[in-house]
């Protein structure tokens, strides 16, 4: 292949390529590369001792565990919500469908203060949980709830279209061959949905690790206990420890990019499976 593209009679290739690449470089690539450049100023030893300091390690653990817990809960409930929205008709379905989008459109800071007001010890829900010995706000549980809020649309909106496109005939065939409803869902429907569920999971997880606005209010920000990694970067910035902040930011970026690659890989495999039929 000699040319880098197949000929098209449509105009605007050069112009749209120019705008896209220029804009991408100015806004995204050049600024992002600064993190790498700045980290390169540190020696390996300095870098390593920064990103493995006890307080930093604790923040990774909290960020990863709460994001993981939130993503798992979202996969379960997000699947139920998507299922209900696609398969059943009932009063309030359109309303339920709109609610799913709210976390996506709502500023994260607003979500943060609202969730804190609800789950604080004197809040609407918090005051009922307090006598039971369940503390939500200012604990990892609170962080998890904020991340469930943030991640919900990602799961529902990736599973929903796949569920809609699923042919009823396949399920009917399973029934004809003697499978019960439960078995049909487990053996026929779920395998079809697995790539979408995994993609949604990875998206929610990736978003959760980087999330800041909705978490800072409800987490209480205690070092070693409820301090998430993005907040730690913020703290380092505020105390002018620029090098340390950069090193931690690089670790967070690497985790995010790994998730992005994973998502692309899942979709690529799912696409190949669909093609091979």
């Amino acid at each position, binding site marked *: 292949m000699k040319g880098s593209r197949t000929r098209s009679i449509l105009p605007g290739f050069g112009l749209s390529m120019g705008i896209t690449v220029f804009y991408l470089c100015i806004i995204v690539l050049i600024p992002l590369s600064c993190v790498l450049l700045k980290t390169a100023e540190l020696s390996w030893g300095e870098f390593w001792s920064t990103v493995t300091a006890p307080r930093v390690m604790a923040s990774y653990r909290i960020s990863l565990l709460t994001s993981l817990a939130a993503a798992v809960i979202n996969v379960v409930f997000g699947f139920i919500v998507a299922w209900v929205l696609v398969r059943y008709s009932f009063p309030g379905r359109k309303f339920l469908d709109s609610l799913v989008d709210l976390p996506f459109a709502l500023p*994260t*800071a607003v979500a943060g203060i609202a969730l804190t007001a609800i789950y604080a010890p004197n809040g609407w829900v918090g005051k009922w949980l307090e006598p039971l010995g369940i503390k939500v706000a200012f604990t990892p549980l609170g962080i998890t709830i904020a991340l469930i809020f943030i991640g919900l649309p990602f799961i529902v909106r990736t599973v929903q279209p796949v569920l809609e496109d699923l042919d009823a005939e396949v399920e009917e065939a399973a029934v004809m061959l003697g499978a019960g409803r439960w078995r049909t869902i487990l053996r026929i429907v779920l395998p079809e949905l697995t790539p979408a569920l995994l993609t949604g999971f990875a998206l929610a997880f990736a978003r959760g690790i980087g999330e800041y606005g909705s978490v800072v209010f409800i987490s209480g920000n205690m070092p070693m206990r409820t301090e998430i990694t*993005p907040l730690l970067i913020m703290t380092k*910035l505020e105390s002018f420890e620029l090098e340390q902040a950069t090193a931690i930011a690089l670790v967070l970026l690497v985790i995010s990019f790994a998730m992005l690659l994973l998502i692309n890989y899942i979709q690529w495999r799912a696409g190949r499976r669909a093609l091979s039929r």
Partner: protein
Amino acid sequence: MAGTVTSRLSAKAVVRAKPVSEPRAVKWLLIGIAFVFLALIVLLPLLTVFIEGMKRGWDVYISALTDPDAVSALKLTLLVAVIAVPLNAVFGVAAAWLVTKFSFRGKNLLVTLIDLPFSVSPVIAGFIFLLLFGAQGYLGPWLDEHNLQIVFATPGIVLATMFVTFPFVARELIPLMQAQGTQEEEAAATLGAKGLRIFWNVTLPNIKWALLYGIVLCNARAMGEFGAVSVVSGHIRGETNTLPLHVEILYNEYQFSASFAVASLLMMLALVTLGAKSLVEWKTAQRNKETLEG
């Protein structure tokens, strides 16, 4: 990659034959679970914002919104959106045109790079502009020499916002334009139409509703961005405070009612965005119906 909520129309639920549906009890149990879950996680925060905002009465609510700091925060938020959103819209249209109308090497890489800001923490999104333009940043000394200020001022806020909302318009347009293919544009080109004319008369009518929703969503995120803006703003009251930052300041000063009052403004922005989505879905459904009937 489904990084965004696409404006795809959720098809009407079909009534299914008994063997391929669940028993009534299971059905209503699942619907119940979905309702309770969404009520606890999404609906309750929505109501809380309005109820807490109104708690101290209408007067406190109004005075929180007419406070000079709140008004200047609103002005800055609008200014940032007015600059960032159109630029991102132009980029989104160009990127979607490039990705869906041509095939070229490295396209997958380009699409991945466009999605990149989705997976970058907002704190890092602000931080990178600090590294580039801050006092200790790479361009800091040069900017200082020429008396230019980018971070801790409006340009920095605009840049950070642009980074965060970068993929939204492109993400709404790419799936739609991919599904529509290139035949109509190619027919127009064969008949002798030139570039802009093809876009205005053929492409734009097909994508206008998705474009509108992309812009509305991009706008909602631009006005609501918190983490990235927080890093580059410097939190100077009345000068570099946006509405979400103003919410934070009031909250940290224990002025909860005022904080929720300002937050309710942002909540309304979110509700308008959801309304726009419903409108787009309705219009798309109508269009599909017309195509089927016509």
